[in-house]
């Protein structure tokens, strides 16, 4: 599972109120979510981004509210992966659950520049800045996390498990 695109850079402690402002929390329509991506920092972000582009950010990306729309809006806007010095816990889970690859590499935000071409391989924990010819290697994602991402997200992953469980129950009843 690898992603490649141009880098959009953001700073440290990017909070979910900036990624997806609270006044839109009433909104769940996927079509409308993407328009508000990063609105608190750059209201035109959703127009500038090309599908496949990558976000690189400083420490604690996605801090604040646990709102899942913060991850969903970035995925829908076309972000293919996020690499940050570190991630806030709830955002990290929300991204994985939405099959949006996220990878933490301490200090990476100091070396990558806006507009660099970047390749992200979450399965093997490899991130490359093609423009600067730099490569970082970190721990591969846990197998469980890769299973969720490869299923297309937590919903399809758990749906398969739930269906398998109810099928096995049916078999038991027949016996």
């Amino acid at each position, binding site marked *: 599972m690898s992603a490649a695109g141009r880098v959009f850079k953001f700073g440290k402690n990017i909070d979910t109120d*900036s990624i997806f402002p609270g*006044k839109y929390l*009433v*909104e*769940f329509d996927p079509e409308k979510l993407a328009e508000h991506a990063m609105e608190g920092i750059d209201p035109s972000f959703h127009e500038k981004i090309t599908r496949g582009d990558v976000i690189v950010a400083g420490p604690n990306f996605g801090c604040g509210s646990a709102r899942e729309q913060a991850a969903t809006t970035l995925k829908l806007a076309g972000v293919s992966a996020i690499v940050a010095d570190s991630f806030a816990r709830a955002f990290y889970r929300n991204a994985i*659950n939405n099959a949006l690859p996220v990878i933490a590499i301490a200090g990476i935000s100091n070396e990558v520049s806006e507009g660099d071409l970047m390749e992200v391989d979450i399965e093997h924990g490899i991130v490359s800045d093609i423009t600067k010819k730099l490569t970082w290697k970190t721990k591969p994602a846990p197998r469980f996390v890769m299973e969720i991402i490869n299923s297309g997200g937590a919903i399809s992953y758990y749906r398969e498990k739930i269906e398998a469980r109810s099928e096995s129950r049916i078999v038991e009843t027949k016996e």
Partner: protein
Amino acid sequence: MGMTIVEKILAKNSGSQSIVPGDIVDARVDVVMLHDIGTPGIQRPLKGLGLDGPSPDVECVIIPDHFVPAPHVQAADNLKLTREFSKRVKNGAYYEIGRGGVCHQVMCERGHVKPGQIIVAPDSHATTYGALGALGTGFGVTDVAIALGTGNLWFLVPPTTKIILNGNLKDGVSAKDVILYLLSKFGEERFIYSAIELEGEIIEAMDMEGRMCIANLAYELGVKACLIKPDATTETYLRSAGVREFSAVMPDADAQYESVIELDLSDLEPMVAAPHSPSNGQSVSDAAGVKIQQAFLGSCTNGRIGDLRKAAAILKGRKVHPDVRLIVTPASQAIYAQALEEGLISTFIEAGALVTNSGCGVCLGGHLGVIAAGETCISTSNRNFKGRMGSFEAFIYLASPETVAASAVAGVIADPRDYRRNS
């Protein structure tokens, strides 16, 4: 090998003998809390999972609070859906507008939080439940739908840091100042994905409201959970909330902590967190004199009866500054009723404050008092990120109820100790 509170709760609910940080466990969820954002939010994932509704094994408590009463049709539609979904809940409770309040407060005061439980909510400030010794933490709607529909959820076992707070707090210094200090000291990153256990003289002497304030705002430290081990104060609170039976989960004597930090807070001064981060703390004297246009007393952090009492003691016989709006939001209807009975609401109104229904509107910048570009608000709530309470060009200072009340009178950020009375 000994385990911390979080490890013991996760081991108990996953049927494991022993677990260590870094393990991923599939654990039984005791309670799922939903509000008027979470309930509409979980519908799509629930359908995606092929599940009809809540698992009967999970207690499901639904408390509309974010956009109440509905400020626009979209919110009304969400509230209608929330109400309809609540009728499908067989095991749980629903608190209609006017009968509940801010979700985390209602969860605790109505006895839905018990020590040792795992409580999942689509709201980060679920860490509040740690004040009662429960593992409460916030998730996105996908995780909440999985927990509600299947009764289980995966957890990464976090490392635990023990923070021991010693000493005695000075007069005019309260729980909010303690957590703003911890945020300024440790920042928002150090405890990402960790759990913290709080103990020490200051915690032991603190009432449950203060503990809830700290566990609530502790989320901004990046933690997964903030636990306080149950004691006599916990038991008294639980009894008053109507909880008859519970079994406290205590840390083992030989529990393994990632680190143990000991602090003496006897010299702590009232704190404010300056824009635009909760960790941007400074002592109130450093921020004194900053002009404000709005002051907010409320939220799941500081809208409790003790908070209202402390603010009213400062406001009694005084007037809110002519250039300031003071908005007061009791955290629940029960607190509102109590404040009425004690005459606190009259004190607020006589001082020139606006008292609203309980809800999250002001704190999250949804409605009931959003702020304009260029305005400054001092708030007892939990977040001062850009745009949190309205305009992205506004400024928010976080502070204790005492400091907010004193500042509302002064028209500028003020030290509450200058507004105390000799009693």
